[in-house]
């Protein structure tokens, strides 16, 4: 599914009440103690498997290449903060700036256009409504690689290869299906009474949308907004074909890996990786409930 094509991030909206099983409830009684210990051993085992490579990569950003490969479990003897300076010199600053510009523009436009389309499709009856909705929804299912070759030529013909506006428009187009789908479900659940009252007071359709419905949809906008920030910041397939001359951070990481195979400056590569990981992990830790809910469920009443 489009801009969000990454390992398993296909959003699968399933209507669920926001009740969280398992959070902060007392552990099982004496009868379940054995199972309880077993559960924790297994769950901690997988947590370690997830966290060790991640923490190891963070540590590698302050190690020398010799330490990274020679003594992988040891802490660095001297913390090599200069790795970050060299990573910056290798272009990471520029890649980061490109990513920030494209994601800022892409997410703002996605949110605006996506919620406009979703709102009209969810709250107004007109001929072709269903068809347009399914047209958007279908975009979540199709493999982006079917379209990648013709897409390249579409963007080339518009003169938008390796430009900010080209990437932004493509990101928006490929983020629309899930955004429309998600916000459609959200606008459906909002009560009609407030909107009717606003109409009574002489508010226009556009006014009702911007002044009444959008503020009411804030929780949904937050979830899908964070989803789009992460998805577009992490996007790799689209920019690697459409923006070869103006790489975003994910492309930069891939390029740096390729060049370290002969340059051998692995510390700088991991410093670049840390620069790429820290922002998303901070966003994740701040908003992980919204991220998880936004990714896995369609309704948040």
């Amino acid at each position, binding site marked *: 599914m489009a801009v969000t094509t*990454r*390992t*398993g991030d*296909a959003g*699968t909206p*399933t209507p669920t*009440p926001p*009740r*969280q*099983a*398992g959070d902060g409830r*007392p552990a099982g009684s*004496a009868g*379940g103690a054995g199972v309880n210990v077993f*559960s924790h051993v*297994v*769950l901690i085992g*997988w947590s370690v498997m*997830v*966290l060790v*490579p*991640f923490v*190891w*990569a963070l540590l590698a950003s302050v190690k020398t290449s010799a330490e990274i490969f020679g*003594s*992988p*479990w040891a802490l660095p003897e001297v913390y090599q903060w200069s790795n970050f300076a060299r990573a910056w010199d290798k272009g990471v600053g520029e890649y980061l700036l490109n990513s920030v510009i494209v994601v800022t523009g892409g997410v703002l436009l996605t949110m605006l*256009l996506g919620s*406009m*389309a979703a*709102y*009209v499709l969810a709250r107004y009856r007109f001929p072709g409504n269903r068809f347009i909705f399914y047209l958007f929804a279908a*975009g979540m299912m199709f493999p*982006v*690689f*079917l*379209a990648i*070759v*013709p*897409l390249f*030529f579409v963007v080339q013909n518009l003169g938008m290869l390796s430009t900010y506006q080209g990437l932004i*428009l493509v990101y*928006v*187009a*490929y983020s*629309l*299906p899930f955004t429309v789908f998600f916000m459609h479900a959200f606008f459906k659940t909002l009560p009609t009474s407030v909107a009717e009252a606003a109409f009574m007071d002489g508010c226009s*359709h556009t006014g009702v949308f911007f002044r009444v419905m959008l503020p009411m949809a804030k929780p949904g906008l937050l979830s899908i907004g964070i989803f789009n920030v992460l998805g577009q910041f*992490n996007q790799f*397939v689209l920019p690697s*074909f459409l923006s070869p001359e103006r790489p975003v951070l994910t*492309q930069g*990481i*891939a390029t740096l890996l390729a060049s370290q195979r002969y340059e051998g400056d692995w510390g700088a*590569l991991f410093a670049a*990786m840390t620069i*790429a990981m820290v922002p998303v992990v901070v966003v994740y830790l701040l908003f992980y409930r919204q991220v*998880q*809910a936004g990714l*896995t469920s369609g309704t948040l009443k």
Partner: protein
Amino acid sequence: MRHGQYRFIVGFLVLPLALYAVFVISPFIQAFYYSLTNWTGVSPTFDFVGLQNFQTLLHDSLFLRALRNNAVLLVVMPLAVILLALFYAFLLNVGAAGAGAGVRGVRGSGFYKLAFFLPQVLSVPVIAVIWAVIFDPTPTGLVNTVTRGIGLGTLGWLADPNLALYCVLWVLVWGSVGFYLVLFNAAMSSIPRDIYEAAVIDGAGRVATFFRVTVPLLWDTIQTSWVYLAILALDVYALVAVMTAGPGGPANSTQVISLQIAQNGFQFGRAGYASAMGVVLFFFTLLIAAIMLRATRRERIEY
């Protein structure tokens, strides 16, 4: 009023639809068209060649190799991810159930969800670089220090043609389990508690409850997950492109369809041929989604 309403509807839909039509729908349709031509991607002219591209595909050993590798991923990856995610979700929710209670979460389940889900928010190139380095084939590579510790010795991992595809498979599973754990967990928490209580009163043990109550009630979610994971397995690109040698190596052991499309379309000047591969990929996706949904169909349980 009515007139104004239609103007409003059109006004709100025209921009999103235009963008979507230009950058998503039109390339998809063009791909079908170009798949019937010998277009190089550079020359302004090209000829219609009918189904010739598809006939060539049948004898393209590299493409067939890629197809086979995608098939391995397609069969193993969704199964592994769903079984692991279900198992962990079970441990998270029902695992700690006392004899008298129906369903209770283990302590710290919030932390587990936070940790398991982490790979989902990292970009694929970042994940690919981490694993490319810790799969280092020298004896001091991070993974090798572990395998030596448990007596498996030093392995070649991504440098070994017999292992490389399984390394890709592992990283895909590693990255996906957390997402499906959170998904299944959310679905499980929406199952009313009294169903579990009734099962316990009827004398059902933990395992029986899981297989006879939880799994049937989650079937819709499992089915959807299966289709999404299958699409992921068919569409895999970034991981292979960044992590494997070549990419697609060693000795083409990690070739996949998407890599073939990229190489033919952008390096070998065979845009028409690459489009034909895209069309094959499309029909595979459609076919697999249809088969999955039919084969796994069960009576829907309402609660």
